[in-house]
């Protein structure tokens, strides 16, 4: 075992898969000679060579399209978006070409598109986005959002092995802030199954359903609520958004009957809506209170710390809403 950051865990996952399977290769902007804007693929060029670590021109649609073509032929491409905000430039390619290829033409398209998402880092409106809601709506894609170092590693490995296209949204705030004891590389095969949520904390009074960096804020809030209010808060880390783990969601609803959904992304049209609708459909009679949301406000994400902190959800918000829910 060794203590590794979220970023290092991710690196290890990528590296292990590249060593295990020569069909795996990486393409993206500055992934080779520079090792990626956040150094996720640092050293990969030296180890795997120019054919498997490809510095591309600035052209996200081509990066994703080329990955798809290679995947059809049995390769396992991992495409990096330098910041996940630039995935918008490949939106057509992903939603129309990639997502539908199995369905419409019986063409497997096992690609991974990964990159740094999320705010709290003063990145401004174009280096802080959370694009999951834009793709949740596309049958044929899978969406993965790890919150822990273990899952960063386990899910990137699962994503690469998955036979479907996977969007892999890393949280850049977590890259170097989260550490965890993990088995040494080569010491066992750490794979986190796609499609399964994780109970990050057990509780019986109310449930927080969340994912990615918000898992940590939810846990912080849960501790405070336990300390200050004696509430036992359950935190469900979804890990995969598409396909969604309905069983885990239903189980926590039935257990606590009071549920809130927390995500960093903006409110309207965000993932929380979908979760709320599913809970309505599958466990309405178990609800003792409305499903409530804590999310970013509906604005582009501003740059100034005071503004960014105001727009993004904070631990105190989660506490406030949890108290309302508990008292409902």
């Amino acid at each position: 075992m060794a203590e590794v950051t979220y970023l290092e865990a991710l690196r290890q996952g990528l590296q292990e898969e590249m060593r295990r399977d020569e069909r795996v290769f990486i393409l993206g902007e500055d992934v080779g000679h520079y090792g990626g804007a956040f150094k996720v693929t640092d050293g990969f060029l030296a180890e795997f060579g120019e054919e498997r670590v490809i510095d591309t021109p600035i052209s996200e649609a081509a990066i994703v399209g080329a990955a798809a073509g290679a995947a059809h032929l049995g390769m396992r491409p991992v495409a990096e978006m330098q910041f996940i905000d630039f995935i918008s430039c490949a939106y057509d390619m992903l939603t129309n070409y990639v997502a539908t290829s199995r369905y419409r033409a019986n063409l497997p398209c096992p690609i991974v598109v990964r990159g740094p998402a999320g705010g709290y880092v003063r990145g401004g409106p174009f280096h802080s986005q959370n694009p999951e809601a834009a793709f949740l709506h596309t049958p044929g894609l899978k969406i993965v959002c790890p919150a822990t170092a273990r899952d960063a590693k386990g899910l990137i490995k699962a994503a690469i092995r998955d036979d479907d296209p996977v969007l892999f949204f890393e949280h850049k705030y977590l890259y170097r802030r989260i550490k965890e004891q993990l088995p040494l590389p080569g010491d066992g095969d750490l794979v986190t199954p796609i499609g399964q949520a994780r109970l990050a904390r057990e509780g019986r009074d109310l449930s927080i359903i969340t994912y990615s960096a918000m898992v940590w804020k939810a846990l912080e809030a849960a501790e405070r609520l336990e300390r200050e209010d004696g509430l036992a808060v359950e935190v469900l880390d979804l890990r995969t958004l598409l396909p969604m783990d309905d069983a885990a969601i239903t189980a926590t609803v039935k257990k606590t009957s009071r549920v809130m959904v927390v995500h960093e992304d903006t409110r309207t049209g965000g993932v929380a809506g979908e979760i709320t609708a599913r809970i309505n459909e599958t466990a309405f009679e178990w609800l003792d209170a409305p499903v409530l949301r804590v999310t970013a406000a509906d604005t582009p994400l501003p740059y100034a710390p005071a503004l960014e902190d105001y727009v993004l959800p904070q631990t105190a918000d989660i506490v406030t809403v949890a108290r309302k829910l508990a008292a409902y």
Partner: protein
Amino acid sequence: MTARPVVAEDRAAAERQAAGGAPPPLGRERLLELYYYMRLTRSLEERLTNLYRQGKVIGGLFRSLGQEADSVGSAYALDRAAGDMLAPLIRNLGSLLVMGARPEEVLRQYMAKATGPTRGRELNVHFGDLGRGFVGQISHLGDMVPVMAGVALTFRMRRQGRVALVYVGDGATSTGAFHEGLSLAAARRLPLVVIVENNGWAYSTRLERQTAVRGLAVKAGAYGIPAAREDGNDVLAVFAVTRAAVERARAGGGPTLIELLTYRRKGHAEHDDQHYVPKEELARWEANDPLERYARLLTSRGWLAADELAAADARVTGELDRAVAATEGDPAPEPESALEGVWASPARQPAPWYREGGAARG
């Protein structure tokens, strides 16, 4: 540009060449095969037009009348045995047939049959088969260029000596996807051949309203790759120019952009009455019909006899009679099959609960 002058010149050149008494550029068998595929393309589309009028073709019908030489000649230049692959466009029925798509598949596809290659999920020639070397396209123009760059990249990574070919229309050269895909392929010298089918129109928009350039071959310069410009209605010229590009790609010479000059003699789709097209322009291109030109060349040069061509025509008629008969009565897909195969896993979507016990009607 107006389509006329260039092609008139090219045509004259082709006929000069023909009159020069050169020996056949390909063996008799292959000359006949080219003829067969062009005829098959045209006749199959004519059958489809009939079925369309009878309401049996469900969606739109897209014709390649007058462009058969371009599709057939270029696809024929690939080495199928070596595993070369292509991605067709809506008007590349001929290319698909050359790669081994069967008329039955096309008929079933247009008629949305359960037995068709996409089981009724996709329309017209939107289907693929990696085994036979063609990739199913989507409607969004330009997107196949990056995809085929990825196919070519894979060929290169595996050192397979295979070549990828992709078609784009004159209109589609304006798309960002075309640019990004070709730019990537050129930067990495991938074995990709890009055929730009300049048929004078993008739907109702003439080339000169789409771009300030007179011909599209010049676009190759922006990517640092070689270009060629050829008479797309001369099947042998198309074959030769594509074959040269394919072999250059195979030898590691990187992409080539080939502009084929041809003409869309029907409307954008069957519903389009082409009111915006000058009648003389149509007439001029009718006189430059690639199938007739090729037949004339073959017989006038003595490379094939008229009755050999007639036999090929008869073979096509017979095959299509059988194909239509074999497919017309095929079943429509089962409604619930729509839920299968969105993902590899889960392999099937659950039916909406309110549909349990059968599909809703009305």
